[in-house]
């Protein structure tokens, strides 16, 4: 079954074509990668899929349902989680509170439950905290649960963003350059984490990544973009050697 299907998608900002007539599909339970030089439209594609941008034309289907034009919060509630290229945590809140944000769609206490601290509200709160702690432990951050997110070291902040995203219990997780700024040891741990997310949590993963070794190492499916168009799609071994991909990354003379 195809989990994510993108059909003839276009995005234009005034005269600038960011995404041009793009179609591809990612099967359920896959680790896939979007690659391409800077400005190829990868992050714009993430923003389109998660509802932050509205496409100029085309359609996005998730788990068989059309999600084109839904607002970001509605897309998230349907099981699509994401991280951001420049890490967007709630900086003054604790690591645990950050992860608790993802439990929001699976809880329901409102103003009155809060004012009267109903037994249902207290049960729900305890459950949500437990669930958030589990997500923190999954990425190895159980010991920093009470520290404020802004004070965590860079590598931990990347992990915390992933913990927050998996706590949403999505079907698909979009990671925008998760390895950026990590050292080799952290990158190796990240590759393991991505595999564990797919294997143990049964969450499909799509990553935007510039580190081709990581791409080749973890992904089973690669979509290569250049100037908003798909230039290659398939298993990493084929796509990374594809002449158009080599050309896009190195420039024509290097190939010529």
């Amino acid at each position: 079954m195809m989990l994510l299907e993108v059909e003839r998608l276009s995005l234009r900002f005034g005269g600038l074509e960011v995404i041009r007539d793009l179609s591809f599909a990612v099967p359920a339970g896959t680790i896939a990668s979007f690659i391409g030089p800077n400005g190829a439209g990868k992050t714009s594609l993430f923003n389109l899929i998660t509802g932050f941008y509205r496409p100029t034309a085309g359609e996005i289907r998730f788990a068989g349902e059309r999600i084109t034009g839904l607002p970001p919060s509605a897309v998230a509630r349907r099981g699509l989680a994401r991280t951001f290229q420049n890490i967007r945590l709630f900086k003054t809140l604790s690591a645990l509170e950050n992860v608790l944000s993802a439990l929001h769609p699976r809880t329901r206490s409102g103003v009155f439950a809060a004012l009267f601290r109903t037994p249902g509200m207290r049960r729900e709160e305890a459950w949500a905290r437990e669930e958030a702690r589990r997500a923190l432990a999954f990425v190895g951050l159980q010991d920093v649960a009470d520290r404020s997110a802004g004070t965590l070291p860079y590598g931990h902040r990347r992990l915390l963003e992933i913990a927050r995203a998996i706590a949403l219990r999505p079907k698909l997780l979009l990671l925008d350059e998760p390895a950026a700024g990590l050292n080799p040891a952290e990158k190796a741990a990240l590759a393991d984490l991505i595999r564990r997310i797919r294997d143990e949590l049964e969450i499909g993963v799509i990553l935007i990544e510039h580190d081709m070794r990581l791409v080749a190492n973890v992904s089973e499916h690669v979509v290569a973009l250049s100037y908003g168009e798909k230039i290659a799609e398939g298993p990493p071994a084929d796509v990374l050697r594809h002449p158009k991909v080599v050309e896009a990354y190195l420039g024509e003379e290097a190939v010529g």
Partner: protein
Amino acid sequence: MTATSFRARASQGATAGLLLALFLFPRVASNYWLDVFTSAFFYVILALGLNVVVGFAGLLDLGYAAFFAIGAYTTGILTTVYHVPFLLTVPAAAALAALSGVVIGAPALRLRSDYLAIVTLGFGEIIRITAKNLTLTGSASGIYGIPRPTVFGHALKTQQDFYYLLLILAIVTYLAMRRLEHSRVGRAWKYIREDEDAAAAMGIDPFRYKLLAFVVGAVVGGLAGTVFAVRMTAIAPESFGFMQSVLILLAVILGGLGRLPGVVLGAFLIVLLPEAMREFASWRYFLFGALLIAMMHFRPEGLWPAGRRKMPQSGRAALNGGDGR
């Protein structure tokens, strides 16, 4: 005993001592000081209500006095024209304030926060000018002869009665706000304030929660208005002008945006500082203003802030000349 539990106990002890002092205050204080403190409690309630919008959700509301006016006029009209008992006017005022919160919030909250500030400013003026021109609201002279209320068989008449009523209401409001702050709803507000996109990516609908913050703030303001009407027995449009909205906003920002003890402190300051400077006669508001500018320069995070925290974007721009911190 660890250092943190010692600090917690010390602060519990200080709170208990302060509350005891406030409950015993009428035994020693003159009517004048009772009146000043009753006003302070009043601003505590209003500032706590506005804090939901400005502090928790990070929205700039420049017309908060409008909700206060709606509550006051609802009670004023229902008790004088229709002879409805005070307590029955309370739910009516809350409902009307909530409704106006939705009517104003629903279109305005879809806009960027700078526009929200303008829309709320306009709304505040519309309410005041409407009250000034309708016969139902008594035009410019307002409504007078609002009967003193009977609460659970006890007629509230004296200065002291209102002192205790407002003290208790301020405490109840404070406790309610603390529960809200540490709940799922309170967290949703904070997530939106910190990073609206990240909150949306976690399945939280920012619009829905902003509207909820607006409505909760409106209801608190409306309830404060009902009590204001019966305490004053007369209300006039000029009590609900732009300066009133600014004063309440000052209380929220002065003490420390979003942090409840700071908001209470801020409310006390905006009532007590002008009183303390009374001997400077007409200079006192000038001094008060100079003091505020100095404070915004040296302590832009408020006197009693919650850690390091961002002010709402437009609030920061408006108050710090746009350069933030």
